[in-house]
């Protein structure tokens, strides 16, 4: 992240206060770090059993944008973190996310930088490597990205698709949006409703993973499970198509569909 230009001002690891990593000072606690540095944002890699505590510590100490990379945080803990974030007026990205990147500007995450190029396509996704796959396809077709946001693969995440769509709408750099969803939950359906009801002004292209997933089985991500009939890929694809969104059949089709829409 430092190489990319992200201004990392401090690290927090209980017990490692006083040390330095890549010449960045490390503190034992968020309070100390914030007294000195007044950071706006933070990124958490703390293991799952302790991650929620770290998140609460960050929020308690004035962090307004919090990226939680950690996977396997219990649902109950995530629910508590989100409630506190709401109270603190802070934005949580994740958990179980690769983070957020505005190519050639800033990166708070673990995505491979070289795949992304600056441009006008906003990306929002529940996945990690699938996002890189699609981003690589966009970059190859010279469709650079304005910002790529990883919502995370868990059932409870800080942001949802509608939050991202709203932000992309008011972002002058973004001319089109790529939405990458998967089975489980109803966030894609709610996004489709939003796109339709608000007559969303920018073109949206989507890919939904998990058409081949059987019901009742968790496909890797904690949030990727079809419960009964709810959360199927078909439901999501239908809802999005009905809202005027172009839905790709395979990951590489996203760049093709987008290219057509943007030149049109």
């Amino acid at each position, binding site marked *: 992240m430092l190489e990319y230009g992200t201004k990392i001002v401090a690290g927090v690891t209980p017990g490692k206060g006083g040390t330095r990593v890549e010449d960045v000072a490390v503190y034992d606690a968020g309070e100390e770090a914030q007294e000195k540095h007044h950071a706006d944002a933070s990124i958490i890699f703390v293991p799952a059993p302790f991650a929620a505590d770290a998140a609460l510590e960050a929020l308690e100490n004035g962090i307004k944008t919090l990226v939680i990379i950690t996977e396997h945080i219990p649902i109950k803990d995530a*629910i508590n973190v989100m409630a506190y974030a709401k109270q603190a007026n802070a934005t949580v990205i994740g958990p179980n996310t690769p983070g957020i990147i505005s190519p050639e500007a800033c990166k708070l995450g673990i995505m491979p930088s070289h795949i992304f190029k600056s441009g006008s396509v906003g990306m929002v996704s529940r996945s*990690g*490597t699938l996002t890189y796959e699609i981003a690589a396809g966009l970059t190859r077709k010279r469709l650079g990205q304005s910002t790529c946001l990883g919502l995370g*693969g868990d059932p*409870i995440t800080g942001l949802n698709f509608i939050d991202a769509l709203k932000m992309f709408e008011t972002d002058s750099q973004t001319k089109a949006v790529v939405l990458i969803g998967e089975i489980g939950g109803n966030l894609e359906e709610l996004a489709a409703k939003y796109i339709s009801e608000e007559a969303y002004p920018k073109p949206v292209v989507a890919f939904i993973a998990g058409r081949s997933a059987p019901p*009742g089985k968790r496909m890797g991500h904690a949030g990727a499970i079809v419960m009964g009939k709810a959360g199927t890929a078909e439901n999501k694809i239908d809802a999005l198509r009905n809202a005027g969104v172009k839905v790709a059949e*395979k990951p590489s089709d996203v760049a093709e569909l987008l290219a057509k829409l943007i030149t049109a």
Partner: protein
Amino acid sequence: MKLFEYEAKNILTKYGVPVPQGGLASDPHQSREVAARLKMPVAVKAQVLVAGRGKAGGILFASSVEETERTAEKLLNMQIKGIPVKNVWVEEKIQVKRELYFGLTIDRFRQQYVAIASGVGGMDIEEVASKTPERVIATPINPDFGFHPFQARQIAKRMGYSGTQISELGRIIEKLYLVGMDYDTELIEMNPLVETSDGKFLAADARMIIDDNALFRHQEYRKKLLEGESELSPQEVEAVKNDLAYVKLEGNIGVIGNGAGLVMATLDTIQYYGGKPANFLDVGGGAPSEKTALALKIVLSDAKVRVLFINILGGITRCDEVAKGILEAKEKVGVTKPLVIRLMGTNEEEGKRILTEAGIDVLESMEEAAQRTVEISKTGGA
């Protein structure tokens, strides 16, 4: 982690939620002992973690201790939807006046737990919610406020109860919330929650799913999962122990990838080209060669697999490590099935070199690789 009906009922009993009198039996003789303590008739219920157990013949009735033993013997020798019945739960049949529903689940959009109640129990609650939403009472639970006894009583009233039944039902609802919170459930429900002919309430069936990510704080259940006492197959348990996400499917194309979304998309793409995936397997990020080798072993342990597609897009995952893992697997496990490998990302050149030198082709495009894999699965060619 799905709990068995008997596990859920035992927990509810601990918390003071009434359930029909009953007991567990793992052999017909034991079922006699249980039945001897109960009033006839009884229900004999196969303890399996599949949906639609009743329709599949997993719930039978008996009117005597002898009949209970014969019924238990029948069920214990059966398979319900392919799952062998290891235990039966024998309980008193109840006189039902009304079937209700109460459960606690998650509302992803609101980022909260939500309590769901309905005066229409014993049915698929999702169907009730979609066909007659007015018959479903949803109470979102604000984590800062919690869920209080007065809210439980409110729900009881809205379900049509009055007098002492308000508090009785309210207490049960309240307790179910406590169980859910204590056990980190992602779903807990009583369906049906029965009002008996003498106005009492009993949880006739109970379902609990513990959040897998919370198992580290429920070691008793984590142990059961790792010892095979859950719905997971032996391969799935081995995968869990080694931090691999594995789901067995029905087809003949083995799949390994890094990242759940990418693996799902890989399965979808295989299907798009007319192939049938045999499994889902996510090796996760930064997998060392041993983990990749184990992944190959698990996938190839399924005899149906005719060809294996490995799709790697390396961010923190290094393509050369993956390549080494594949060669390790070939050596240790002996890989006889054709491999189709797609490598892209960190150290892709080195990974490609390692495999090409060992005579294994590496492709750059995911779709090309998927197509090639499907061809091989149909023709068996290498």
